């Protein structure tokens, strides 16, 4: 999904892995099959998760891994997921 990335290839790969880990950690309900779903590169599910993230943080909702989305991902944060039923 080249449209997801605007940076150089190596940075893109690193960003992709960072994004993947972030979405699994904070935008996937634990214990379900969705973890497998979310990591499918370029899948609609991943775009949907990026959109959820962007909407939550008040970013422009594009579904793409742009700089402002990366900035949020790299920011230190609380480990409680934003969307999951964390009990």
């Amino acid at each position, binding site marked *: 999904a080249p449209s997801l990335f605007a940076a150089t290839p190596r940075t893109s790969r690193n960003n992709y892995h960072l994004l993947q880990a972030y979405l699994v*950690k*904070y935008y996937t309900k*634990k214990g379900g099959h969705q973890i497998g779903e979310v990591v499918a590169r370029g899948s609609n599910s991943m775009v949907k998760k990026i959109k959820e993230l962007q*909407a*939550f*943080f*008040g970013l*422009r*909702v*594009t579904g793409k891994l742009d700089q*402002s989305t990366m900035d*949020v991902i790299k*920011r*230190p*944060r*609380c*480990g*409680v997921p*934003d969307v999951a*039923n*964390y*009990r």
Partner: protein
Amino acid sequence: LFPGEPKWKKNILTYRISKYTSSMTSADVDKAIEMALRAWSSAVPLNFVRINSGEADIMISFETGDHGDSYPFDGPRGTLAHAFAPGEGLGGDTHFDNAEKWTMGKNGFNLFTVAAHEFGHALGLAHSTDSSALMYPTYKYQNPYGFRLPKDDVKGIQALYGPRKTFPGKPTVPHTPPHSPSIPDLCDSSSSFDAVTMLGKELLFFKDRIFWRRQVHLMAGIRPSTITSSFPQLMSNVDAAYEVAERGTAYFFKGPHYWITRGFQIQGPPRTIYEFGFPRYVQRIDAAVYLRDTQKTLFFVGDEYYSYDERKRKMEKDYPKNTEEEFSGVNGQIDAAVELNGYIYFFSGPKTYKYDTEKEDVVSVLKSSSWIGC
């Protein structure tokens, strides 16, 4: 709130610090934890009692990596801490990543700040999308001394536990901070204003929960006041504002909503920004400025801007355009903008660009805080 709205059924809760960190003294950890709990107990009828042995409702510990709760920590930065919603066993427990550098100040991660956030979870609050809220998920230093819960957090916690009574036997009153909100120190800050607009003969500068009023040509008598005191509906964190002086009307934007005012009087309920013709992915406006000559309002969103024709009350075609490409010399994201004496002043972080619309170039750069006398 968390799904199912879990909350404590009792109003006296015990806590215990079972594992300390090596990056702070135990006394400082105790103090930060106590202050963080007090931030919540000042708003709701909950009392916290410390115990030193056995199982407390809220077990507090500093942990490293995998620590047995299925949410392993990840080393420095990344995840700083987590806490469990109210409940038996693990419920209410609060863990801090011991790999972080914890401090009482700003050099590292401030334990009070993170603990206060985590205790919000331990009491039943989920993450907030309001970036001014303590329950917003990313770290932002809070000064422990004189800290008061932001409105969104008060609203959330009082929805679960109700407001704290001032004294036994007296009527229940909503939580009101004893002092006005702290005034952002713009003189010593790299931040800019959230919004700037003319309103009648005055210039208004908004930042967090405060706004400053000044006469355009006078530096004297600039005083901060709370947004709630003049615009209760807006409460805090105004994203953008502009005035169409010919109509005697001003517009204030906050998230996907806007309010119309005549002077300081808000007219009617909030409306949605999509009435202006913004695409749905635009969820908030960073800055807005009305240009008197063309009777057009420019709306800045991220690194782009839209042009709205106030005469036709219609968004113009061929927008959005890239801000830096169209406004030569203006760099960075626009936080606020206002037109004054034929110039557009773009506020971007600590800088204000004075843009000459005829020369189509920046003619000078000012310090943003100089507008309020710094």
